[in-house]
């Protein structure tokens, strides 16, 4: 890109989009499964599990980052397993930034998805079961399509939030230009080093992306269909 100002490095933007995209996919699958358990099952310690899931929303990023370092660091069990599988440690790689983004966005998604799934009228699911449909079939053909709009809206929020993580990423992925430096970290770096133009451009890109995602989220969050009560 010869016409672009030479002082702007686009790597952080692409990395951030990739990290947020992968994190969103992970949260969508895992988070929807957890939200389904919370909304449709009764088990001991359910509300405790809900509190645990909410915890990352209120803890400072440094605390979360610290936990991740302990949990996934080179000397931890999980860290060892990861290293033997992929031949490199997890911490201070861009993959660690994905883990950070997941931790940053999953609580909001799961809490929202639980509400969305609970709002699907149970009668549709009962009817499906009574017709002989398995739980998976009921979920994939009835519950999910009826919750689709709500979940998509949450996914777009989740993507925006993944894009915006700074603290946890700093702690576990660090600030290695060209390797782990995401957009929000790059902004911090640009401001620190007095690169005003870079900071301004990245801040504007970040704000515009977030705004578009929020607009999409609110467009999608119109209520899902429910049974009519006319006669």
């Amino acid at each position, binding site marked *: 890109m010869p016409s672009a100002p030479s002082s702007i490095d686009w790597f952080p933007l692409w990395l951030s989009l990739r990290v947020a995209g992968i994190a969103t996919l992970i949260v969508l699958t895992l988070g929807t499964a957890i939200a389904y358990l919370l909304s449709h099952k009764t088990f001991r310690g359910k509300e405790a599990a809900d509190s645990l899931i909410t915890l990352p929303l209120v803890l400072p990023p440094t605390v979360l980052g610290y936990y991740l370092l302990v949990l996934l660091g080179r000397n931890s069990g999980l860290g060892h397993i990861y290293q033997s599988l992929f031949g490199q440690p997890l911490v201070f790689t861009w993959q660690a930034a994905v883990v950070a983004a997941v931790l940053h966005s999953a609580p909001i998604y799961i809490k929202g998805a639980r509400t969305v799934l609970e709002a699907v009228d149970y009668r549709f699911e009962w009817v499906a079961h009574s017709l002989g449909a398995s739980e998976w079939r009921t979920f994939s053909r*009835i519950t999910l399509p009826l919750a689709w709009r709500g979940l998509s809206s949450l996914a777009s929020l989740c993507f925006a939030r993944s894009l915006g993580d700074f603290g946890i990423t700093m702690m576990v992925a660090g600030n290695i230009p060209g390797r782990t430096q995401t957009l929000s970290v790059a902004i911090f770096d640009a401001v620190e080093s007095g690169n005003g133009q870079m900071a301004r451009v990245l801040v504007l890109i970040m704000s515009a992306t977030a705004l578009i995602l929020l607009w999409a989220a609110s467009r999608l969050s119109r209520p899902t269909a429910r049974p009519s009560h006319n*006669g």
Partner: protein
Amino acid sequence: MSSPPIKIDARLLKRLSAGGETEAFELNVHLKSDAATTVLWGASGAGKTLALNCLGGFSTPTEGRILVNDQLYFDGATGVNLPPRHRRCGYMFQDHALFPHMTVRENLKFAAASARHNSRLDKHRRMNDLLEAFDLTDLAQRKPAQLSGGEKQRAALARMLVGDPYLLLLDEPTRGLDARLRQAFYEVLRTTRERSQAPIVLVTHDLEECMQLADHVCLMEAGRFVQSGPREQVFARPATLEVARALGIYNLLPATVSALDPGRDTSSLDIAGSQLQGRYLKGQLIGDQGYLCVRQTEARLLPNIGRREPNQLLLRTTGTVPSAQGVKVLLEYDAAATVSEDEYTHLRGEDVLKLEIPPSAVYFIPKK
């Protein structure tokens, strides 16, 4: 057509502990019926829907045993608890719960694909057959939101029958419908009968509906059956004063047994000094106190002129209220009789009227 009737034998005990705004509740019933249509009738909060949900597998009884057609659905003692999808129970809600994101055909297709018995071809044939039988062929491509109330009823019934269920569970299917749609529903229910051998268990608080549809009636109150049996028997012979009062279609007058003649199969009741002839009362003694129970529609109200014939009581009027069928004349002892507007012109202004009760309608409920 000559296959033996499907029997339901369900002993259900379900305790719900108090929590939040709900009070503790105990459902304790024994539903035994081989009738084509069994109606659970009762006020809201009587436990009708809970009983239905236990049959369908959506609520697990605390104790009990559910047998449908020799198939064990639930047994508290041995821990058998068939999940809803293995029970082959058609379930229908008041608002039909058609899947809103699917067309009528897709709704039926979902049912066909979900059913785990019968061959693919069979199910496909049955689906088309049902679309036709319920007059849905032209509506098959429509989504539920584009259907009228009556069309939704038909689609929901057809969907329920695709999987060839053993048992049909209907939870207040006509609540909130106007009289015309209600009647239309009873009509399609007849189509349902022709297409399926499965017995229907229907929950309602509507007495008219109960009368129209039921072969077997279970009257429910506070989680219990206060009376159950064939419809004619239950309505002709309410077991207790409380049942008769709850049904609200009887005149109940305090009475004393004054004569008994088993040879001639006659008896006599003394009601405030007037004698009323009826059939012999088995198990009663002269002097027994209780209530005369007679269907309001079986008693005739006449002006108090001319000689008093046998089986005519003189009762003071206490007022009138307009009714859908004419005029409801209120009498002492909380009795009432409904007459047409025309008949009422002959009764207007009278303080005392004659209530004629044919001997065949005389039924005596002894005091406990």
